[in-house]
């Protein structure tokens, strides 16, 4: 498994290199001028031109590209072209907040998805229809709507959770978790709905397998059969879906972060894109690509660990 992970590193680096060029060129091709945004709507062309020079935006593209790469390799990410903020702290703080949110949402999604998926799989009749409907609703309701509804119910009406905001988890865990609860739940709901439906479908398929019938014939209790035999065999495809869902949660965090004033990377990326804050966008997108590569490798490894029929590498001849 370790050898598999190590062998994926060169291809991962190649993907990153190609992605860096594509991201750099696409951003330049989209038009817009970060110097004009920095200068404001009343700025004269002279001021904007001076800012462009000061920011190095007048340099040839290859020079700008290699300056960026040099900065990356030397750990000097530079400053935001528009706000002047140091990119290392902007990205560091944002990533920390987004990872905390996504991790909490993933845990919640897995717990809710597992419980709901199993209950749907083993229920029948009207109960199953109701639970199926619930799972469908969870994945169909946009996070914007569920977020506002959660605020209305839990903050405005019952006033048990703060409307929004953020506290670093290590600084004050008790208060931080209360700030985290609503955005994490909001982000987790659609993923939990997807996981529940996939798990229920996968479990029903496994329940039709001969080995389950054999187990029942041997007198295994249905609970044991369900938890020891059906669920483990139903989980691997769900795990693959979970990997995709975590990736989507990272992207979907933009909306949730805006609603709950969660200072994650989503809002940073959205604002940077609107303002064409080139270096900030480039770094963030490159980080996103790296995260997806890692998630993909981890998902493959986990899939193989859960299902012995899956081989990560071709056997040696």
């Amino acid at each position: 498994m370790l050898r598999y992970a190590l062998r994926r590193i060169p291809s991962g680096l190649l993907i990153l290199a190609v992605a860096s060029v594509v991201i750099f060129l696409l951003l330049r091709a989209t038009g817009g001028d970060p110097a004009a945004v920095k200068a404001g709507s009343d700025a004269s062309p002279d001021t904007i031109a001076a800012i462009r020079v000061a920011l190095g935006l007048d340099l040839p593209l290859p020079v700008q590209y290699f300056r960026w790469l040099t900065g990356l390799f030397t750990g000097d990410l530079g400053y935001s072209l528009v706000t002047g903020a140091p990119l290392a702290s902007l990205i560091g703080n944002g990533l920390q907040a987004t990872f905390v949110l996504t991790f909490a949402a993933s845990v919640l999604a897995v717990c809710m998805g597992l419980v709901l998926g199993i209950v749907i799989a083993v229920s029948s009749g009207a109960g199953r229809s109701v639970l199926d409907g619930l799972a469908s609703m969870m994945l169909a309701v946009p996070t914007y709507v569920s977020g506002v509804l959660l605020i209305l119910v839990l903050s405005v009406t019952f006033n048990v959770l703060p409307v929004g905001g953020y506290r670093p988890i290590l600084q004050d865990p008790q208060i931080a978790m209360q700030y985290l609860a609503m955005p994490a739940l909001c982000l987790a709901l659609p993923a939990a709905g997807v996981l529940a439906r996939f798990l229920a479908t996968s479990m029903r398929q496994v329940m039709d397998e001969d080995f389950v019938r054999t187990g029942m014939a041997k007198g295994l209790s249905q609970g044991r059969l369900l938890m020891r035999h059906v669920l483990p065999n139903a989980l691997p495809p769900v795990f693959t879906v979970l990997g995709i869902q975590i990736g989507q949660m990272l992207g979907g965090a933009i909306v949730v972060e805006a609603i709950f004033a969660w200072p994650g990377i989503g809002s940073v990326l959205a604002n940077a894109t609107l303002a064409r804050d080139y270096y900030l966008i480039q770094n963030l997108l490159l980080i996103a690509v790296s995260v997806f590569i890692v998630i993909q490798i981890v998902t493959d490894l986990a899939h193989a660990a859960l299902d012995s029929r899956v081989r990560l590498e071709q056997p040696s001849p």
Partner: protein
Amino acid sequence: MKKLTIPSTTITSSSRRQLLMGSAGALALLALPGCDRSAVKEAATGGTTTGVKTVVLTQSSDFQTGSMMAQNNPNLSIMRAVFNPLTEYDVKTMEPKASLASAWKMSDDQKTLTLDLRTDVLFHNGAKFTSADVLAAIAFMQKDTTPSQTKHNAKIVTAAAPSESQVVLTLAHPVSNIFDWLEMMVIPQKDSYEQMLTGAAFIGTGPFKVDSYKHGQGMSLSANEKYFKGRPKIDKLEIQIVAEASSRVASLKTGASHISMDLPPLDITGLITDSKFVNVIVETWDSAMYVASNVTIAPLDKKEVRQAIAWAVDRDAIVSKVLSGIGLTSSLPWSKSSPAYDEAKGNSYKYNPDKAKQMITAAGVAGQEVKICYVAAQAGFASVAEIVQAGINATGLKATMVPMQPADFFKGLSGEGLPGLFVNGHGFGHLRPATLLKGAFPFNADKNASRYSNDQYKALSNAIWQNTDASKAKALYDEINAHLLDQQFVSDLALGAHTYTISTRVKGLAYTALDYLILDQADLA
């Protein structure tokens, strides 16, 4: 083959326990509000201990730390909280008052301004305020890379400091708006500019000192015990960046915040039905909405077409629907406090679709296309653009909407030009007219967003800028108003205002002529 099902009623007690454990784990986070310390209660006090007066303010956008010498909406909340200018207008009379400068004298030829500085002012880091800080501010403001609408307005030839408490400015020629320039230029501590630009530190002389600033999250400030106008009554000020308007409204309703800046008008009208909230309208009316033309593009190169568009737009609809009544219709850029304000001329263009249609037909351009550019992310301007489009379509022209991102829009505005009409906002209609004519890019006679170049307009702008004789001013203002109404390269539509929606617990809130929030005398009941 018969399908195997496992009814839920047959799940064993051990698997049920596992299910329950899973459920408990999933709900653990939701049970956290039951903790002995409540984030809700802490949020309502700004996260501080009882007895500390903390005011929490929410706003939609992060601060622009590179634009501290410009009027910039996201900075309205902190500019006057952290810094002071040399002089400051009384917003009622628009007469300059002393601030960091205790007195001043203009020479008879109106070309030398001597400013006496206060000697009892300390910066937040303990450094003494001196003339060196003023010279540093002037030098910083004059830099090519410093964004500021008024940077070229003073036309300073030399700035000298005969002593620690005096600064002498020599001007190339008299200027009518020197106090606008002084109001805009705040004085940070002379060694703190690099830190200010990156947001690492903000060292001013204002009533609050910055304890911490996190990009995208907000700023924590505490009372400046040695503030030269007296210690503020509030102990702490927390400014939170909350992008979503509905979340800012909910925050006010739950008591987690006390002030929200520039809420959407519809949210304001909803909130103030509750007696616990009031809406403070910044009555400088410094937030004008306009539609302007790139006059190099047909059919907007014809003055008659631009005038027809001015007749075609329903300004009342903009005030009632977009601004929810918090606005005034206007055909000129000036608000009431401006010396150039003329109520009758300001109402020259009223909604008259029939007249507009006749003018378009007479100009022979019916059926031609005009594009309307606007920043899509700014909901107010998008709505104005829709009203403009409806009005133009009724004239026989075909209006096409062009939603743009800020980076593209501003690039077009200042650089390569926008492909037709553009909807945007401007300020400075309430200050000295020269500040708008020289500082607001839509109106700049030398180079403007409309590509409008006219010798008469240039001469008038310069005359207004350089005229310090009050007896001649009225005639100049009449001339410029007539020119603007006739040429319509910029068609002003409505004067809006910044707003601070506040809890009635907050008392004593005020604002400067540049709409900056003043909390010197504010208190929390």
